[in-house]
């Protein structure tokens, strides 16, 4: 059960870690790399809080071993903002009150970032399907859906 040397390209920076094979990607990001923006809720794939982007695609970091994704690119919530500040998706969530306690927010932001990249003008139904794997226990989903549409507008305006 020796530890493994794993290299992850996290938010554009190559990071080397030594982890046991059973280290979940979520714990690797939080404990080994100190990136606590990725939240851990249920640890069995239901709540969606731990969603990160793996080579651009949203995945559950609690259902992925760090050793499996050796050499791959990971984007966490910390990597969504650009040099000019928050990303359009982040600004839209702030503007439309798409969060309250914020626990689920990192997962929503990563999921929605990929959703709008693949589908820049989703319908209500497509938004609901897109975020159906993310649970929010306080804001409710009305403002989250509004935020997604607002983010789509911001992205369209800003090119």
């Amino acid at each position: 059960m020796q530890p493994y040397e794993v290299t992850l390209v996290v938010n554009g920076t190559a990071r080397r870690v030594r982890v046991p094979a059973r280290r979940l990607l979520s714990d690797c990001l939080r404990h080994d790399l100190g990136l606590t923006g990725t939240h851990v809720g249920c640890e069995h794939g239901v709540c969606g809080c731990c969603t990160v982007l793996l080579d651009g695609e949203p995945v559950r970091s609690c259902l992925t071993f760090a050793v499996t994704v050796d050499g791959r690119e990971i984007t966490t919530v910390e990597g969504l903002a650009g040099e000019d500040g928050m990303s359009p998706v982040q600004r839209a969530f702030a503007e439309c009150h798409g969060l309250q306690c914020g626990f689920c927010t990192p997962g929503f932001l990563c999921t929605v970032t990929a959703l709008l990249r693949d589908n820049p003008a989703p319908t209500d139904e497509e938004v609901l399907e897109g975020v159906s794997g993310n649970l929010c226990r306080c804001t409710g989903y009305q403002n989250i859906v509004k935020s997604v549409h607002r983010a789509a507008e911001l992205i369209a305006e800003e090119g």
Partner: protein
Amino acid sequence: MKPPPFEYHAPRDLGEALDVLAGAGARGKVLAGGQSLIPIMNMRLASPEHLVDINRLHELDTVEETAGGVRVGALARHSRVERLRAHPLLGQALRLVAHPVIRNRGTVVGSLVHADPAAELPAVLAVLDGSVRLATAGGTRDVAARDFFTGPLESAVQAGELAVSAYFPNTRPRSGTAFREVARRHGDYALAGVCAVVTLDEDLRVERARVACIGVGAVPVVVDVPCERRPAATVGWDEAVRAVREATDPEGDIHASAAYRRHLVGVLAEQALKEAARAAV
């Protein structure tokens, strides 16, 4: 909620994977998408001694469309197979599998091997008379769907074998398909579900109709339902519904009673058969 320790293997090609699996025997477990295995490891319901990670076996990340059907490799993820629209019923079923984010990692073959009696993909393989190809270092064998699912969460995969692909035959000409299910929450495993294939003859009368039901037995329950040879729109499915309810043996749990599941499976069978018949015209 952390997985127990295990010996990790990350083979680079199929041959190496089969050697490792042969060495691990009954103490080995294959890791593909991990969307079912890792949760049950996190909950300590499974603690394999050796985990053989096949995520580097890109040779298994394949979807081949042939004249007779679609062969899906062991590393083809749900989302990719869904996007390729390679098979209508497979597409209808995949949209019901968990959530989009889970489908980015989960694999089609992994869902079959996991053999959850409430999962959609085993029913699709069963209703189509598909098969799963199992490999060892010594060779491969194809197991028909009817022999593949042997019990709840149990399949015909033996220790040391790797499921390398699954074959989903195309439906015959003038066939329509549908998948209906009811789940407590979007993306949950269904309380009950039915996928249907209806085939018409040259005069567009119903020739044969078949369903596979999930959540109402230890394995997908396949029923060749009785049907009148009449134009699809005028067929009454009452007898079919009775046959489905008789063939299924649901269990009750905290989510739904056995009686409710039996009622539900009949309602869903009627809906799925009607929709499949409409699609066949």
